């Protein structure tokens, strides 16, 4: 039992790391990775919602009729998103403003519904918790990695502090929309090269 829980947890960190292995939920990945700070904030919000919705769906899996399960999942996810939204508005207001509509949009992030459908609805509470935590942390790591590249190249800073000397010319392309697509595409390419043997 203990072994399988560890497996559920660690698969999210490498073998099925979103969004590189599971190409789902790309919108927030592209939108919030302008700075490392935004990426971590978004990642933490997603971890909370993913763990919460996985655990709740798994608790209710015997009660939810399979015909209306998708609607039930959406309500569960939306509840947790609303909780996160209100918490962020109360305690981290500047971050809340920066992430803007991408916090309510966590509702339609395919990762959440995907995990509820594919994992939590079929498994017990503890594996579902591990699965949610693992994938959530994996998602945060990917976001942070992408944000690190874009922030260092695009504005010459890392988590708000200057990395290069004053003579550094920021590579503006990276923090704008086109840079996001190209950067994610190239990272996917790197992951494919490492992964496929």
């Amino acid at each position, binding site marked *: 039992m203990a072994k399988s829980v560890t497996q559920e947890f660690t698969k999210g960190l490498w073998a099925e790391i979103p969004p590189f292995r599971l*190409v*789902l*939920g*790309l*919108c927030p990945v*592209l*939108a919030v990775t302008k700075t490392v700070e935004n990426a971590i904030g978004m990642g933490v919000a997603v971890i909370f919602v993913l763990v919460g919705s996985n655990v709740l769906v798994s608790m209710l899996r015997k009660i939810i009729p399979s015909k209306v399960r998708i*609607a039930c999942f*959406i*309500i569960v996810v*939306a*509840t947790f*998103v*609303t909780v996160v*939204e*209100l918490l962020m508005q109360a305690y981290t207001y500047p971050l809340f403003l920066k992430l*803007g*509509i991408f916090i*309510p*949009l966590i*509702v*339609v*992030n*395919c990762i959440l*519904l995907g995990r509820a459908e594919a994992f939590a609805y079929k498994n017990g509470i503890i594996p579902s918790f591990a699965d949610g935590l693992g994938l959530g942390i994996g998602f945060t790591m990917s976001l942070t990695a992408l944000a690190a590249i874009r922030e260092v190249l695009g504005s010459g800073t890392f988590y708000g502090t200057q990395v290069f000397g004053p003579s550094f010319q920021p590579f503006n392309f990276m923090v*704008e*929309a*086109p*840079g*996001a*697509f*190209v*950067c*994610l*595409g*190239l990272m*996917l*390419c*790197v992951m*494919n*090269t490492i992964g*496929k043997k």
Partner: protein
Amino acid sequence: MGDYVLLAISCILINNILLMQYLGNCPFLGTSKKMETAVGMAMAVIFVLVLAGAITWLTEMFILRKFGLEYLRTMSFILVIAALVQFVEMFLKKSIPALYAGLGIFLPLITTNCAVLGVCLINIKEEYTFIECLVSSFGYSAGFGLALILFAGVRERILLARVPKPLQDTSIGLVTAGLLSLAFFAFKGMA
């Protein structure tokens, strides 16, 4: 009138929802491999988004604001959109089977298309009037369709090219989207 035209242009080109606001990327990459599916998806999104924009605006103004329930916005919008999509699907199946055959499989996917919920939230955030809300919903969805169809055209050509193995499929798709986005970036000069 001129204001509405400007708003529409800014929604279609300058603030293009796919390439500039990063919304709706899952169907963008998922349905752009063939021209036919791209056209079907684009039409379905335009159809649903205009309806959803109008209905969520009415929900916000006459239910949520009236009773001070703004904190339930996310939850009520997603339910309204899900119900609307289901309703549209049943209605089309019954009364316009030809259109249903064209849009059919794309309709259920729209519920989890973040462009739809995103535009509804933008409409509320920007405090649009009802007419402006309709114009912006149409503009954003037309922009979505434009980008999707352009991208599908490029992607059909990529199929014929020899792409290095690690770059294949999604990876080269994203790089292409980046270049397309760079082209749309030029419209920012118009603003």
